[in-house]
């Protein structure tokens, strides 16, 4: 990918050197199955347990509270469906938000079809929920509150600690999809009152297809996968040893450098925001202050997001959009609609997500190319023509 400016780190990240180095032995010589008793098996087992220790340390959990999965989607599915099954005697009401990732949203919708009731809390323009509204949504039959730690499209960081407090006061379990947050902002499950937390390796420079679910000790979550009783019987299947090792190495590296990374990345993010909101009829989406260090997300009026992404690609820049035509449906993303953007404006969304491997030159190049790309699309847009006619 030389010569390419990669600004879509919320989609996935490049595997870090330290993760690759940690994985390499387990892709080659140390190929043993962790369930076996002989030396290569023991080596693999040790590596998985050491990885569990590192992941636990990174999020303020105990090693026995970490279960490895095949990624964020599996962790979300498992957490929500198993809690629903576990608590169904108590009730069938779940509280969530209108801006969750599809891994949570579609899981909840599948439960709705099976007789569960879900309250989706609305959000304000910045993507924040009201804690008052959350409090009043809790009912005697509420069994779970699931709210993401940070949003993948607009970068808003939600008040997870306070949400956890409210959940626990009411005796309700609290799950958070922290896939976009872990490794990027400090997370401590104990301090943040979290009972279940989903994370995914490839969002913090670990490998794809591997993640983890944190399950607070004492919570008797039903098994997410039946079989050979790996992961203490809760998540069967021969462990993805290289993946697990790579995830842990990447996460350890991320949390070791989290302060320096956050500072470096947010300076570049703010330069993007400052530069791109200077373009007429553009605006930032998400919370202006409480946002992920690497997420710069916008809407540009009178143009469509996918065509922006394609022209950026022409210029060697990778970015993404939540527009309808890039999602394959007729509607722009549910997140952009939930923050109150009208359809026609939500179609013009663009998300640039950077990390510590980006450089100031990357930012300068993006800031140099974007105005021309936007002007080119506006010049061929009948909406832009109408907008200018109105002004005159």
């Amino acid at each position, binding site marked *: 990918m030389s010569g390419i400016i990669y600004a879509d780190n919320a989609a996935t990240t490049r595997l870090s050197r330290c993760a690759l180095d940690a994985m390499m032995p387990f892709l080659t010589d140390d190929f043993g199955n962790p369930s076996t008793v002989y030396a290569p098996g023991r080596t693999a087992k040790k590596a998985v347990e050491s990885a569990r220790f590192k992941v636990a340390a990174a999020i303020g959990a105990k090693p026995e509270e970490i279960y490895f999965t095949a990624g964020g989607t599996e962790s979300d599915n498992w957490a929500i469906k198993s809690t629903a099954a576990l608590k169904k005697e108590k009730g069938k009401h779940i509280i969530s938000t209108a801006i969750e990732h599809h891994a949570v949203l579609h899981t909840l919708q599948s439960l709705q079809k099976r007789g569960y009731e879900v309250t989706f809390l609305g959000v304000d323009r910045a993507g924040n929920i009201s804690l008052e509204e959350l409090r009043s949504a809790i009912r005697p039959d509420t069994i779970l509150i699931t709210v993401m730690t940070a949003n993948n499209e607009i970068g808003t960081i939600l008040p997870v600690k306070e949400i956890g407090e409210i959940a626990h006061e009411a005796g309700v379990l609290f799950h958070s999809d922290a896939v976009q947050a872990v490794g990027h902002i400090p997370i401590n499950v104990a301090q943040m009152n979290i009972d279940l937390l989903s994370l995914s390796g490839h969002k913090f420079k670990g490998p794809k297809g591997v993640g983890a679910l944190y399950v607070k000790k004492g919570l008797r979550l039903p098994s997410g996968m039946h079989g050979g009783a790996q992961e203490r019987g809760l998540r069967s299947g021969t462990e993805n040893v290289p993946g697990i090792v790579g995830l842990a190495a990447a996460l350890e590296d991320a949390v070791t450098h989290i302060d320096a990374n956050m500072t470096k990345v947010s300076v570049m993010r703010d330069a993007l925001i400052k530069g791109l909101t200077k373009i007429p009829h553009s605006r930032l989406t998400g919370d202006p202050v409480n946002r992920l260090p690497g997420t710069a997300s916008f809407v540009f009026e*009178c*143009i*469509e*997001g*996918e*065509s922006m992404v*394609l022209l950026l690609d*022409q210029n060697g820049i990778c970015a993404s959009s939540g*527009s*309808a*035509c*890039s999602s*394959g*449906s*007729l509607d*722009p993303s549910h997140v952009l609609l939930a923050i109150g953007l009208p*359809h*026609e404006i939500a*179609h013009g969304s663009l998300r640039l997500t950077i990390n510590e491997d980006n450089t100031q030159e990357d930012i300068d190049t993006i800031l140099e190319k974007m105005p021309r790309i936007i002007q080119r699309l506006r*010049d*061929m*847009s*009948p*909406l*832009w*023509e109408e907008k200018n006619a109105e002004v005159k």
Partner: protein
Amino acid sequence: MYSEKVMDHFNNPRNVGELKDANGIGQVGNSVCGDIMKIFVKIEDGIVVDTSFKTFGCGAAIATSSMATELIKGKTVKEALRLSNKAVAEALDGLPPAKMHCSVLAEEGIKSAIEDYYKKQGIELETVLKADEE
């Protein structure tokens, strides 16, 4: 995801911009669904002598606008009216299934521009089509 032809027409759109001496203009789609196409035609002696477009939309919308205008340029009005969205998609070496709806707009846009031309002559498109069948 997109064919090379689609990318070529997206990156180097043909016939883009306003046609100053157009005698038929049609605009289809709406900003809620995400794609809007404005097609300009200049018709002389039953032939589309020139055409252009302005489009708000995704890569497929821009590429189909470009290809559709290419396909009707120099053709008779009858031929232009017969242009289907499938033909436009085929000329682009296909579109992803989720993007076929964008190509429908190109077909509709051309019909709408030609309809506008006839309307300005005091003729209903319906009667032209009927006369055609007979």
